[in-house]
């Protein structure tokens, strides 16, 4: 019954559908982490049952940089094997030419999503991708340990450092030699850009490249933020944190070996899983703020969307699939099972979600204050901007030059890259 209703809804919402739908063989790529692939499969099974189409999942590496390289190559070659792409929130300006315009297909549903997210996926009036879920990281903390040492949830990075150090030393004295204070994503990749942007923004140091295209990164507040982060390595964070991506930091955290972790909401459901050593012992809070003028808590805006390749041989069915995967039903399931934040405003007031994933309603605020990465002003140069930024930060974290020196150098590189304009 439910499935029939869903199908009826889909058929009316897709303007491009004409005549009897033929069964199509579709392919979708996904670099999802954790249980994400299994979840996707379960939703695709429903889609297959409702439409008679078959959908193959092509799994990809979880690193967004790796995925992007592959997708760009496929799209540039006009590859028709992949119909639906799972796209990062930052990719729209770079890949816009190769995806179908979904404005017409999504005209009935676009208004239900957060306008800022729809805007991030719109390039020159063309809706490049439909949002599936949004992402904003939080500070995961061990409430049992904070209670044991009688500590408050840190509001600033300095507090976090002091608390982490004390608990870590205490726990190590109690026999857990593998205990650390804080894990984050410190590998040289897109994830470090997200982490470091939060530090810089939380110190009031701007957003690397501002919305008007001016390069703002070389300032004392930004240097202070990165210097602070560099002081964590080897003290409250393991040296190996310099090579951690999301899953490595979650590994340390979920074994119960860290007091704090910076990660995306997906880690919440997994941390509460049956095999987790920290199940029931942790909670989340907004990331700490920095110090100085303009200091605030900042979270980098993430999120994933579905786009349809313009080389797809079954564009109509592929668009249906993209609409299905971003529909309220699937977003609700995804919120409950995966703690992925919905992009549909109405779902934040949904009683079932509030019951199953109580953190989601709280996240509305975190995510509304989220900071976008400078992908819109830097356009096709974004990847290089991001790479130069994360390299400068990674150098500083690994003790290769001071933050001030590296940021000065970065400003020079960015200026050269910008040339006459982005």
């Amino acid at each position, binding site marked *: 019954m439910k499935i029939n209703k869903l199908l009826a809804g889909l058929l009316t919402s897709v303007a491009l559908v004409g005549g009897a739908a033929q069964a199509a063989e579709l392919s979708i790529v996904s670099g999802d982490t954790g249980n994400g692939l299994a979840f996707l499969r379960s939703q695709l099974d429903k889609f297959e049952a409702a439409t008679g189409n078959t959908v193959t999942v092509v799994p990809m590496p979880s*690193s967004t940089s790796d995925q992007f390289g592959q997708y760009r190559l496929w799209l540039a070659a006009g590859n028709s094997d992949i119909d639906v792409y799972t796209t990062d929130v930052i990719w729209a300006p770079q890949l816009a030419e190769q995806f179908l315009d979904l404005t017409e297909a999504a005209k009935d549903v676009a208004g239900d999503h957060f306008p800022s997210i729809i805007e991030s996926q719109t390039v020159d009036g063309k809706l490049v991708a439909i949002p599936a879920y949004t992402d904003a990281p939080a500070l995961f903390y061990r409430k049992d340990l904070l209670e044991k040492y009688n500590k408050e949830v840190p509001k600033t990075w300095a507090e976090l450092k002091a608390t982490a150090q004390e608990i870590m030393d205490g726990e190590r004295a109690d026999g857990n030699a593998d205990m650390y204070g804080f894990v984050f994503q410190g590998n040289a990749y897109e994830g470090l850009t997200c982490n470091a942007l939060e530090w810089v923004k939380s110190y009031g140091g701007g957003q690397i490249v501002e919305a008007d295209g001016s390069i703002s990164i070389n300032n004392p507040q930004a240097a202070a933020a990165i210097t602070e982060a560099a002081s964590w390595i080897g003290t409250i964070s393991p040296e*190996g944190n310099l090579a951690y991506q999301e899953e490595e930091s979650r*590994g340390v955290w979920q074994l119960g070996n860290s007091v704090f972790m910076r990660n995306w909401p997906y880690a919440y459901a997994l941390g509460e899983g049956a095999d987790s050593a920290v199940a029931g012992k942790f909670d989340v809070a907004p990331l700490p703020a920095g110090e100085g003028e303009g200091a605030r808590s900042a979270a980098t805006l993430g999120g994933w969307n579905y786009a349809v390749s313009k080389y797809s041989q079954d564009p109509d069915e592929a668009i249906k699939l993209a609409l299905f995967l971003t529909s309220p039903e699937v977003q609700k399931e995804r919120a409950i099972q995966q703690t992925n934040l919905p992009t549909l405003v109405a779902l934040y007031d949904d009683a079932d979600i509030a019951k199953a994933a109580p953190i989601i309603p709280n996240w509305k605020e975190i995510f509304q204050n989220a900071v976008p990465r400078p992908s819109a002003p830097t356009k096709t140069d974004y990847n290089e901007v991001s*790479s130069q930024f994360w390299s400068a930060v990674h150098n500083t974290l690994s003790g290769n030059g001071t933050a001030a020196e590296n940021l000065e150098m970065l400003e020079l590189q960015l200026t050269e890259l910008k040339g006459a304009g982005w």
Partner: protein
Amino acid sequence: MTTEAIAPPVVVPGRAIKSELMRQRARAARWFLVPMMIALAVVAGWPLLRSIWFSFTDASLTNLVGANFVGFNNYLRWTTLASGRTVFQGLLVDPAWWNAVWNTLRFAVTSVFFEALFGMAVALVLNAEFKGRGIVRAAILIPWAIPTVVSAKMWSWMLNDQFGILNDLGMRLGLLSQKVAWTASPETAMTAVLVVDIWKTTPFMALLILAGLQMIPKDIYEAAEIDGVHPVKQFFKITLPLVRPALMVAIIFRLLDAMRIFDLIYVLTPNSVATKTMSVLARENLFDFDKFAYGSAQATLLFLIIAGMTILYIWLGKVRFDGGDR
């Protein structure tokens, strides 16, 4: 003086018959080579020429057809500012490129040196007569047989600072005072990559050297034995000179391979400035940064550097590929 007059009529017909035969054989050989040459031109020659062409254009991945010729701008260009200062730009003055060249050279020379050393040791052991030699010979090839991406991923978990078996072993045996983040810290990243590459490629080296060792006649050693030559001296005076042609060819293969190292580093330490090689950097520019022409220039330069090194090596080492020694 008379021999000179007689000699030509004797030699010339002989030579003529021989060269007619040779010509026929050469013609046949040429025909047999044609399919291979065509295949090479299609799969290697054409892409190579295209890469070189793109390096002289402003091509981007989304606009390959409409690329414009820009001369040597990707390699080197200069602008004179209003202040009279001249600014050089392009690949030849790009510090990231020279860092990658240095990383690649360091990696290639170090890895090939240790592989040759260990390969020789392993080959000498395998050349000795002992029970089960066949099985050991097959077994030693396993690291070489595993696809690089798989072994790189395997090693990246073994090298992991928190869950890795190497840190666990080191801690238990008391060799390490604290867990080391092998692939994360810039000091150890290159060492980690080298260890994995040496582990993987030593068997290949050993196999090539072993083939050379088996060509050496046993009676030379018997004669040396009878003359009472010390085994160490035997190695340096007999084994090493006789195995040298095979060793030189093995080294050159490995060196060429090592100069274009990509997969291992891409999986083990992607984006680390300490290990970024020419191929990794070229890929990044080609696909991630939308600088297809610039990446092509890097690929072209990589090709020229490898070609230059090969010529230099063959010339300096007097290598002959037919197995003899000049």
